[in-house]
Structures are given as C-alpha cells and as structure tokens.
C-alpha cells in the first residue's frame, strides 16, 4: 500500500483494475469485505469504505444476502473514466520531463513507438 493516499481509495482502484483487466468479469461476484480486509491486512471498516465507493458510482451492486457483483457495463464506464484522466495523469508529466531534457515531440513519438514495439 502506498502511504500517501487513503487506503480505501487504493482498495477501490485495485478492484477497478481487476474489472478493467477482465480478472473480475461483469456480473461476477467480488470478494467479501472481510476477505479484502484479511488479504490486505487492513481494518474491515476501511475495506468497506473502498467498496462502498464502487457501489455509489454503480460499478458494483449489492445483492441482499448474497454479496456484491460487478454491474453490467461497469468495464466500459471505468475505461471511459480512466481515458478522461489519462492526459492529465500520464501525458502531462511525461511532457514536463521531456521538455526538461530537451526531447521534442517527434523524438518523443519515436520513443513511444519504439517502446511499443519492444513491449509487443
């Protein structure tokens, strides 16, 4: 866990990541609050706060007496939201560092393409 940010946010994000990657499919059940708490060694109230956040924004839904499930359409909504934040969170810092080092846009684009080739 990262010290600088509230743990409940990190719990919510890790579940979102699993939904985006397909690890947790739409309609599938997510682990219980107590399972999250035990796995991450955190207070169950903190785990509950993280999951409640996902319930509030419609990513997961509670089914009384059964558990919590990923809603239909959750993945595409999460992907859209992450795309909206992508420029501010990843591209801008990249450009700041590139400017500092005198890397221009064309060179940067070349580097991105090269890395993509290496990764695939």
């Amino acid at each position, binding site marked *: *866990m990262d*010290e*600088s*940010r*509230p*743990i*409940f946010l990190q719990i919510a994000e890790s579940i979102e990541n699993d939904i985006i990657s397909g690890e947790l499919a739409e309609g599938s059940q997510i682990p219980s*609050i*107590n399972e999250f*708490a*035990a796995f*991450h*060694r*955190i*207070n*169950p*109230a*903190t785990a509950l*706060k993280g999951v409640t956040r996902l319930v509030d924004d419609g990513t997961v839904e509670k089914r009384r007496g059964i558990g919590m499930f990923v809603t239909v359409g959750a993945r595409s909504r999460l992907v859209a939201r992450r795309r909206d934040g992508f420029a501010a969170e990843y591209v801008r810092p990249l450009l*700041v560092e590139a400017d500092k080092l005198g890397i221009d846009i064309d060179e940067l684009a070349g580097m991105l393409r090269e890395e993509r080739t290496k990764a695939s």
Partner: protein
Amino acid sequence: MTTVARTRGLTKRYGSFTALDSVDVSFTEHRIYGLLGRNGAGKTTLMQLLTGQLFASEGEIEVFGRTPVEHSDVLRRLCFIAESQRYPEDFKPSHVFKIAPSFFEHWDAEFAERLIADFRLPLNRRIKKLSRGQLSAVGVIVGLASRAPVTFFDEPYLGLDAVARHLFYDRLLEDYAEHPRTIVLSTHLIDEVANLLEHVVLIDEGRIILDQDAEELRGSATTVAGPSAAVEQFVDGREVMARDRIGGLASATIDGRLTAPERAEAARLGLELAPVSLQQLVVHLTGGALAAEQQKEAAA
C-alpha cells in the same frame, strides 16, 4: 454508534506526579483503536483505570454505563492483557486456559485450542520456564479467545517474533470480522499495525494530544525536502512540525494536506514531497517534549 467506555476529566496522580491529566476520551463499540504514545505517557494507567484496576484521583469513568470498579457484570465484559502478566507460582498455560472461562463470559475454548496450535504453545510447561515470546503468546491467546466486548492489549507482544506477530494480526482481523468488538491496542510497533486501526488516540505526558480517524491521519502531514531557500519559501506561513538541515539542503514536515496547485508549486521549486507515516507523525508530535527536555537538561 454506541459508546462502550468514556472518561471525563480523568486524572490520576501518584504523589506529585500526574500520570493522567484531565483526560476526556471515548471508545465506540466494534472499533479497533490504537492507543499510542511514548513510554510513561500514561497509556497503561488509562487502561488500568478503564478496567477497574486503579482508582481515579479525579474525574469520571463509565464503562457500559457505570464505573468498572467492583462491578463484576462490567468486568466480565472486559479483558486486559498486560505487557508482563504475572501468574501464580507453578502455573502452567493449561491452568490459565482452564480458569479463563470463569472470567470471560464469551470465552471460546475451541478458538483458544486453535490459537494454541498456531502459536505452538507448550501447555504443560511451567510458565516460569516459558520463553518471553511464549509468555506473550499466552496473553495474546487469552485476549483473542476471551472475545470480550472490550479488549485491551497493552504491548502484548514482547519477545514475539515477526511470524508470531503477523499471526496475531491475522487472527485478530479474522476474528474481529466474525465477532466485532472494541479492541484497544497499545503498541510501539506503529508501522506494523497502522492499517489495522480504525481510530488513533495519542497520549503524551498524561494528556490526549490526538484523537482521530486513522484514515484522516494518512497523508495528513508531508515532508518537503530540497534546497534550504526553496524549502523555506514553500513552508513560509505554514505550521512546521519538524525541521532538519544538512549543508545547503533542508527538509521540513508540515501539517495539513497539500492541494494539487501546491504540489505543482513544490515541483516547480524542485522540491521532493514525501508522505509522513503514522509512526513518523507520532514521533514528530511526541518528540518535541523530548527535545525541549534535553535542552533544559543541557542548560542546567
């Protein structure tokens, strides 16, 4: 939220020494509390007062609505695990677990058996002959298996190795999830337990100096490091909890969360920002008195 224990103006004096100074604190049901502070801060005194082992000099204590002293119906719902529990001469762990049910109405013998196996505790060895860690394990097992609605652990794990401590944290969390209750954990190993806590009470020189939700405390202070001039410029007008300086570099720990523009400003000034852990925060908040004392001693 039901309050299970509360104090008002609670003061405890030993002669001219004030161990607790007008403490107002309350504990809610089904929460895990961290009772933190330096040695001699008053943690044990507070817990002993709450469990009816000491008489207050002044002030009020209510546990389940009444004073704990001499009220067996209150005391049976409390469990206090002392740092160095003394047992009668010739006692073996098996004796402890045999009499425990008569002290705790929610005692779970089956759970105790499982914990004994987990901690590999020899039941029929004399307690005098147990290692320090095994002695601590006896206390930890009693504290967990008592399932007392309010359980105090006062530095429960002297001598327990890292494996046994993590076993304790895991069993505590699992059992708390199944059987919610109020747990008050007093410890110096703050980093290890920080994520288990829902609420933090910090006590220093007999006074409560912090009483706050653990989540709110996370990231509530930040250390700024970089060239001295830039650090000073950035922290100007802010409350600085700690300062350090080496050559032309300085670091300062400031209270309060930073906004996104402030973070950007720090980056522009070439400053590094680092979050302050609960343990570091406690050191900053309670270390000041130590520094002042040392100065006083140096002057004398």
